[in-house]
């Protein structure tokens, strides 16, 4: 009887501490997202509210087939293009894309003239701001109850791999994913231990193609170094 009681107490304790999201966490299915633009706005505003972002921005959907999303520096309108929507298969993945753009829009409020001149440093060192937007996207997702691993999933699924970084505005996708992985590992490790995306075909492919970069990071964890890793192509 005592054993039974102990088991009962243990199991209720375990259930109470289980890292489950509230039932209301996911609002939409992929089908609903593809069918109804309103889902995009709702997820966007949920990210804003949960992160206490008091800067105004709006969200919209474009029928263009670019596999992309963008933020207008002029009016802080975040556009997600149909080409990218076609790749979305979970609400987490859509939240990942929106959270990245929200970070750009928040940054556009910094500086003089209501942030009007803030585009200047973005012209010279765009990749620095992309890195920050990826990292803030992880924070925003976690605060809004989304799984940040989905940022890696959507990138590996939809973002192509260029050869050289110097020519582009974004870091190479392989590097971005490695940096995001490092960021999640460092700040929110629970998501990697309890990872519902572990067997997801796109995440599995990330584990395959990122092995050399994850080895670099494992070395950093082992030595406790704080130096920035230069991730490989």
């Amino acid at each position, binding site marked *: 009887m005592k054993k039974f009681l102990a088991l009962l107490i243990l199991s209720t304790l375990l259930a109470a501490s289980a890292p489950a999201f509230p039932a209301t966490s996911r609002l939409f299915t992929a089908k609903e997202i593809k069918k109804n633009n309103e889902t995009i706005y709702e997820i966007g505003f949920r990210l804003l509210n949960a992160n206490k972002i008091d800067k105004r921005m709006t969200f919209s959907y474009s029928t263009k087939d670019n596999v992309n999303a963008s933020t207008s520096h002029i009016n802080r309108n975040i556009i997600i293009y149909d080409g990218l929507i076609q790749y979305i298969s979970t609400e987490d993945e859509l939240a990942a894309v929106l959270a990245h753009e929200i970070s750009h829009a928040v940054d556009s409020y910094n*500086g003089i003239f209501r942030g009007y001149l803030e585009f200047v440093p973005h012209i010279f060192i765009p990749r620095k701001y992309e890195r920050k937007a990826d990292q803030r996207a992880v924070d925003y997702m976690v605060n809004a109850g989304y799984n940040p691993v989905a940022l890696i999933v959507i990138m590996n699924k939809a973002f192509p791999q260029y050869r050289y970084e110097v020519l582009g505005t974004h870091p190479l996708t392989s590097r971005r994913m490695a940096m995001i992985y490092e960021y999640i590992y460092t700040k929110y*490790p629970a998501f*990697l231990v309890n990872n519902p995306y572990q067997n997801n075909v796109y995440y599995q492919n990330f584990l395959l193609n990122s092995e050399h970069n994850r080895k670099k990071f494992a070395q950093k964890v082992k030595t406790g170094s704080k130096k920035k890793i230069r991730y490989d192509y």
Partner: protein
Amino acid sequence: MIIRLFLAFLLLTSSALAGELIRDELVETTLDSSLKPKPYVQKVYKDKLVEKTLLGKNLPMPVPNLHYNYADSDGVVVKLRPKTKISTGGKLRDGDVVKFVVTQNIVHNGRVILEKNSEVSAVVENISPNDRYGVPASIVISRFSSEVLPDKTLDGEINLQGKNNSLWVYPLSYFLMPFFGAGFGTTFIRGGNVNISPDETIEIYYRPTRFRTGL
């Protein structure tokens, strides 16, 4: 009628042709007929780093901020100063915890809820280092907490950017370029770091009822 006849013709000829199978004699005479291809099994890649370093540790899942009641304006200002200098130019990294000190007794509903000189922690959410072309560093600090107050009742964020030198570095480099490319040198000028010294005051809020759990 013509179509039916044509179909019947097709059927007849194809069954006749079916008898004319071409055999691979080499395979039949030299290979074991019981050989079968192995069924395809999806390989599962494991994350060894996670298994080695994280598994079995008590890692709490972050609690999402889904239940703020923004209509609830009950709250008092909490004034803090950093315990030690906070700088984007030093050893601070994303996820590090920084300490602050309360500069005066904080009173709510006639009761002191935080005493002067008590400690408040916060998380360095993100550091973006300064860069060439005068690009400034930036820092975001949030998740303020005190051991004597319930979770998520301290509300505030530090979001600062260093001096943005890109606004003059670019024009300068442009003007200096005709002089033997001297403008190129100016592109190495970096933007400013963010420094918060221990005598600077930071204001956050104590909001006891705005965040509601268990909803």
